[in-house]
């Protein structure tokens, strides 16, 4: 009886020690990385390439990723003949900008058309601006749009001609968040709440500001 107790004690102590070591290692790892651990969106840092594109803006001139250095960018793909899903996401992003308050001045929403055949630079800019004054509508050559989409694994497909004219475009609904140096940082979906997107953007802006 006593013998068995004596044997049990060291075993219990070993388990406790193992747990203590594991906790210390976890804490050290958390402190050491220095990275915020509470992203609510998907952290894609290091997994997706930096923002790079050559498209056409509302004024008809070439717009590139370099024009947005110093701004946090929210990148979303859509098309202007989309009356429901795209407006819902763009309204969502407008609410995010409202939630950011004064911080929104250094944030831009980039709405990239996946339907350049119908989306002229002027209409895509008008469409984007109808949702938020800090939204930029971009279109351009199909090859340039495809290059950008493939860079972020964004898929899109033109549907068949509809009776009565027109067609629809099926497209990825993801929202990509970039830091002020054009690095891909976070991935959001339209299902993420305004609150979660605002939370992460504030955290990203604060982390960059303290650097």
């Amino acid at each position, binding site marked *: 009886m006593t013998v068995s107790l004596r044997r049990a004690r060291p075993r219990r102590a070993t388990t406790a020690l193992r747990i203590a070591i594991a906790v210390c290692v976890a804490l050290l790892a958390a402190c050491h990385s220095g990275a915020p651990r509470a992203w609510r969106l998907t952290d894609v840092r290091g997994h997706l390439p930096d923002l790079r594109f050559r498209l056409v803006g509302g004024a008809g001139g070439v717009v590139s990723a370099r024009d947005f250095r110093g701004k946090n960018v929210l990148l979303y793909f859509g098309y202007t003949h989309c009356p*429901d899903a795209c407006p819902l996401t*763009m309204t969502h992003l407008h609410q995010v900008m409202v939630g950011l308050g004064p911080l929104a001045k250094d944030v831009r929403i980039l709405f990239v058309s996946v339907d350049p055949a119908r989306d002229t630079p002027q209409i895509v800019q008008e469409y984007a601006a109808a949702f938020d004054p800090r939204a930029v509508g971009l279109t351009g050559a199909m090859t340039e749009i495809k290059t950008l989409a493939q860079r972020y694994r964004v898929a899109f497909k033109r549907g068949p001609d509809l*009776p009565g004219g027109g067609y629809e475009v099926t497209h990825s609904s993801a929202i990509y968040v970039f830091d002020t140096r054009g690095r891909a940082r976070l991935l959001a979906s339209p299902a993420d709440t305004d609150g979660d997107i605002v939370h992460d953007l504030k955290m990203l802006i604060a982390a960059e500001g303290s650097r």
Partner: protein
Amino acid sequence: MTWAIGERLGAALLGAALLGAAARPAGAAAAPAGAAAIRVRHAWIRVLPGDLPAAAYARLENRGDESAALVGALSGRYRRIMLHESLTSGGMSTMRRVSQLTIPAHGRAALSPGGYHLMLMGATRPVKPGDRISITLLFAGGSTETVTFLAMPANASAGP
């Protein structure tokens, strides 16, 4: 060709629908399980720039004992209206045409952002936020209900 026929047919149907609506005394319970039993509220349109298609939304409540189905809509202000549904699956957004939206007996259904909606195309003259647009909803069985939709800005997050 099909378009022209469709438009003429649409105009004829709209005329018939409006006549029907005008002929029916307000609040009359004559129509069986049709529009008379359907209450439409929070009807609004998300206005987009230029001549881009817009979406219309509303909440429908069926106070009748029989199920009802919205099958389409007509308006003197748009050349073409289609009942659509937006779907998001596997990270992809798509839109499909649907033949009807069922409103169960003593139940509700909604035309709402990201789901079922009326796609409004070819405004006969520009629609601005604040405009009140008359749209006639068509139900299975032939009954109709003319509803006033409030035009709202593109970034409106909810209806009136």
